[in-house]
């Protein structure tokens, strides 16, 4: 039944600035943003106008092509601005808090007593649906498709990722209710995959109505894509849904309280953060308050999400919808002299998966302060076999990337594009000698597949 998986491939990037297991509360942010760009390929149609007041959980916009998918406001207040970019594309909706946090309340419900369709209706109406993602394509799930299974990863193995054991501690009831709701929506199983390394919190160990699998290995062991591939791989025509563990608890909270309450615990981490730790805040919150007085240097990059897959935001930007961490690392926009810090240097400050740098000789406890420099220019693919070492799939990564670059639909289908998401290639992108933006290429490939084959 439950599977135990061991991975040999992968890479744990050892970065300075892991969050300490201490949690502080933050006061409600004054400004919150909902960014349609967080939901790939989604075209919003506004429901509210600038200047209108909304409650927390009030619907802001819905998906233009699938109107049942609605997107809600995380706080109560006034719609301050609808920021538009080129071709009037909506970039973000800014909501100014009224300081009250009054919710658009619904009656609590027990998923156990509901049918799958009722659960689905509830989530769609409440604006919680976007928490459910689908594979293939890695976008917000299409509610009209039946998933063959639903996957939840109980940990994140990305560098400086938050520890979900800490994040979800004591939230067993919410998490379980969320799992119950998910279980109603599939005829298959809900898979909860826990880390084989170290102990998992009771929240995960005691989860009911799900298949608990363990996976042991380096990053990307915690990626849900890796787990799907080894537990129940996706074939053409099949759908699998994935939900982040903390989002499961948020869904559960809605059923328990009837409130769209998207408070979440995030890790503030990275080498440029004084005293990295956890904070409780809200999806879409402005990070200026969070970062105030904590950034150690001037020239930094603030990332909503982890260093491998997150989005670059400004120091007064907003937390992404799906993100459970804010990471701050040094910006690398300086020339680096080849003999000291560049390609010819000894390189004790570089973390490399290749043995051309002395990373391998340094103790495993040594952590690195990496910046955003690409450490070289983009080139054609030259080195072979390096992507395979960090890609624990029975998929040929370089060949799939090449198929994506050349818009080769048949090639992509044959090589397994339906199983992957850009985040699965994050490590490939990290180790690539030729500095190719592999996640971008995979995303382009997925977009092509979405428009031609779905």
């Amino acid at each position, binding site marked *: 039944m439950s599977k135990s998986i061991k991975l040999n491939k992968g890479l744990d990037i050892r970065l300075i600035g892991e969050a300490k297991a201490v949690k502080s509360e933050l006061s409600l942010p004054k400004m919150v943003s909902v960014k349609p760009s967080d939901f790939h390929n989604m075209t919003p149609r506004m429901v509210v106008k600038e200047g209108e007041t909304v409650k927390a959980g009030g619907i802001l916009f819905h998906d233009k092509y699938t109107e049942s998918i609605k997107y809600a406001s995380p706080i109560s207040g006034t719609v301050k601005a609808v920021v538009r970019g080129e071709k009037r594309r909506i970039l973000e909706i800014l909501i100014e808090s009224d300081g009250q946090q009054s919710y658009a309340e619904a009656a609590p419900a027990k998923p156990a007593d509901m049918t799958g369709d009722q659960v689905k209706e509830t989530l769609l109406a409440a604006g919680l649906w976007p928490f459910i993602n689908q594979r293939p394509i890695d976008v917000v799930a299409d509610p009209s498709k039946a998933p063959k299974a639903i996957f939840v990863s109980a940990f994140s193995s990305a560098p400086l990722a938050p520890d979900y054991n800490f994040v979800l501690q004591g939230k067993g009831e919410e998490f379980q209710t969320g799992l119950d709701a998910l279980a109603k929506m599939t005829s298959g199983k809900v898979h909860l995959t826990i880390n084989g390394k170290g102990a998992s919190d009771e929240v995960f160990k005691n989860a009911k109505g799900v298949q608990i699998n363990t996976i042991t290995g380096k990053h990307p062991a915690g990626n849900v894509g890796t787990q799907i591939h080894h537990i129940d791989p996706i074939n053409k025509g099949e759908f699998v849904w994935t939900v982040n563990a903390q989002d499961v608890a948020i869904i559960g909270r809605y059923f328990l309280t009837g409130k769209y309450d998207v408070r979440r615990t995030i890790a503030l981490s990275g080498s440029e953060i004084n005293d990295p730790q956890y904070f409780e805040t809200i999806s879409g919150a402005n990070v200026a308050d969070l970062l105030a007085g904590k950034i150690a240097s001037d020239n930094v990059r603030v990332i909503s999400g982890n260093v491998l897959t997150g989005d670059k935001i400004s120091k007064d930007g907003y937390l992404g919808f799906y993100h459970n961490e804010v990471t701050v690392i040094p910006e690398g926009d300086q020339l680096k002299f080849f003999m000291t810090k560049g390609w010819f240097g000894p390189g004790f400050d570089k973390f490399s998966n*290749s043995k051309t740098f002395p990373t391998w000789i340094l103790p495993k406890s040594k952590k690195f302060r990496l910046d955003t420099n690409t450490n070289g220019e983009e080139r054609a693919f030259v*080195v072979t076999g390096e992507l395979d070492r960090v890609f624990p799939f029975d998929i040929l990564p370089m060949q799939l990337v090449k198929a994506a670059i050349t818009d080769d639909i048949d090639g992509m289908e044959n090589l397994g594009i339906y199983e992957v998401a850009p985040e699965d290639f994050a490590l490939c992108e990290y180790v690539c000698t030729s500095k190719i933006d592999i996640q971008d290429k995979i995303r382009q490939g997925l977009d092509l597949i979405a428009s031609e084959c779905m």
Partner: protein
Amino acid sequence: MKFLEKIVHKHEPKFAKGGKLEKWNPIFESFTTLAFTPAHTTKRGSHIRDGVDLKRTMMMVILALIPCLLVGIYNTGHFEMVAAAGNRNIPYFADFWAKVGAGAFVVLPLVVVSYGVGLTVEFIFGVIKGHSLHEGFLVSGMLIPLVMPADVPLWMVGVATVFAVVIGKEIFGGTGMNIVNVALTARAFLFFAYPTSMSGDKVWMAGEEKLVDGFTGSTALGDLASFTTDKMTVAGQVVTESGAIDTFQNSYSMMDSFFGAIPGSVGETSVLACLIGAALLIFTGVGSLKIMLSFAVGGLAGGFLMNAIGSNPYMDLPAMHHLVIGGFAFGAVFMATDPVTAAQTATGKILYGFFGGLLAILIRVLNPAYPEGVMLSILFMNIMAPIIDHYVIQANVKRRLKRLKTA
């Protein structure tokens, strides 16, 4: 290095888009990126990147080639003196520095011509296509002199380099796009374009024109090729069929061949130097262990196969001996492993290496018109590599389709 950085920043605007020297930006960029890793930052996706880049990778290959270059210089010097004195029995380590000097005098011009000509061509293409120098030629430029006979005229090296860079690489799109190994293209070009001065049994040693009577500067492979003809010779001496192999093994002992004290192309004679390079390449992961090992295994298999047939003295040469003469070791370590032209899948690499080694011996023994089978077999396998990969990829695809059927 602040002052260098200032110079770069000062001149940058002239070469930037719209500047008056915009056209020459590729050359400016090539030099500045050599001196400084550029200030390029990640945009999205992976915000941090591995320290390794193509410059670092290529640097490792050049480091790995240095033992071969040094032994090549010394060996060339040694055989210069052998040829001058007309005496094969000069002790190898006598007159050490004089040999180093004499060897350097012959080899370094080859290196200079190869880099000079090749980089000029690369820069011309860079300016036309508007990209900075890609690092591939930094390695090719070192490999080309090492696969040349020491006494090859410099103009031939120049012509071969131009041919290799233009036809072998640039018309396919440059570094990373070529079908066949660039350095081997250069050698194959000379081999077929100037056969009279490239093949035969005399050219492989420096100072040919200074040869005295009764002494020819033959190579191990040249001698072996003669075993399939009526006139068998070893090191200039006529031998009979029955004694051919013994005489050969005395002239080119395993030890001498392993350490490189035999005549041959500049960089290829010393198996030890190749193995030192191989150790560095394998350890850093730049060169593929799979290819090197399977290449050697393929060579042994070819040797044993020939031994089993054994219809002429050449076929009787012990399989192990094949691996230490000619360019076999050099080819296995530095040529077959070129990641762009080799097979790219893990299983493909093993097949590619094995057949490369096997074919090298078969061509050597069965077709003595081409004494150096390694070059031809690697070029052939370069062309076959995509087909090998194709079948490996298809196997992966079939596994996925099968899963769909059973699901």
